[in-house]
């Protein structure tokens, strides 16, 4: 390879390496801020600020949905370590059900309750026809295992 081309090759490799390192450093520095939501463990550890708009995400705990008057309800979400109770007054997404992953946008009030303004359903990466799910359940395995 002639020297000029070699030089250009090294300049380009240099640019790619430099930018990658810069991006990795930004990524590490912003690690927490890039996360879309707080996990119940983070909530339990008191990492979420009070009175600011935040998101909490986790799986809806089986049997934890309590419906009140009208559309008001509360339910627990878990990351399999801690639980957070979410209070909500509004329309839930179609995919909302027990065991489903959800993300709630809302605020921690002064009394420590998390009140949601909006609930989004998180979908997992699994796709299967209903018959396959029935077959798996009949065989006594929980979904997706």
């Amino acid at each position, binding site marked *: 390879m002639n020297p000029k*081309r070699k030089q*250009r*090759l090294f300049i*380009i490799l240099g*640019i*790619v390496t430099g*930018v*990658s390192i810069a*991006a990795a450093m930004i*990524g590490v520095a912003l*690690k927490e801020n*890039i*996360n*879309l*939501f707080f*996990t119940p463990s983070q909530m339990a550890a008191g990492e979420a600020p009070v009175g600011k708009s935040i998101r909490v*995400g986790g799986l809806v705990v089986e049997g934890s949905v309590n419906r009140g008057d009208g559309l008001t309800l509360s339910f627990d979400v878990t990351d399999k370590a801690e639980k957070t109770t979410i209070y909500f007054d509004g329309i*839930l*997404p*179609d*995919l909302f059900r027990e065991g489903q992953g959800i*993300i709630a946008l809302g605020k921690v009030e002064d009394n420590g309750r998390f009140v949601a303004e*909006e*609930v*989004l*359903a*998180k*979908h*997992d*990466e*699994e*796709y*299967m*026809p*209903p*018959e*396959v*799910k029935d077959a798996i359940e009949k065989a006594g395995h929980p979904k*997706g295992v």
Partner: protein
Amino acid sequence: MSLWDSITRLYHKFGSPKYFYELSGKLLPWFLGLTVLTLIPGVIWGLGFAPIDEEQGHSYRIIFIHVPSASIAMGGYVMMAVASAIGIIWKMKMAEMVAKAIAPIGASFTFLCLVTGAIWGKPTWNTWWVWDARLTSMLVLLFLYIGFIALQNAIENPASAAKASGILAIVGVVNLPIIKYSVNWWNTLHQPATLKITESSAIDPSMLYPLLLSITGFYCLFGLLVLLATRNEVLTREQRSRWVQQEVMK
């Protein structure tokens, strides 16, 4: 160094716009045939005949468009950046033309991916858009493509345009691992990858096969479009040469 010699010979051959034009002319019918044979059955199978998903019902069918577009958005960007790098390092005109041809096509597939994702997100997530790491980095990819096209158009001299936009394309490569791994590195609303190379995919075979066929079809279509766009670019840039004038007069 016979290997190096043959690489050099290939490089000179593929570097010649005339040779590319002739070769691509022969390849076009094959790409067209493959596209028809894979894209149409893949999409019809996926949208019309694959079974419904136990949770999402019919709305999941958008993956037969969304996943192939996302794959091409990223794969096309890699091709564009590699072609740009070859163009910059070896001053290969043909590589510059390929990179320029890919940009609007890749941008279109990125746009298609974002739009289909939003349409699926509304019924599934209950929102069209969230600023999570996956969605945001994909939007950045669209802006990178648009920036590349804008730089190409802003600079009159083709060689300078290729160099400036090429550097942007190369710098932008850093976004690709961010898109791919955003769902693993951070908490996102977007779910992790369904198709996995190293382990079995989290999708039933009755949905996987039409998806793979559809992805193949989209890639054939992408190849066909890139060939056509590159041929146009060759004719435009080489319009003063004898062979192009003869070609056009035919």
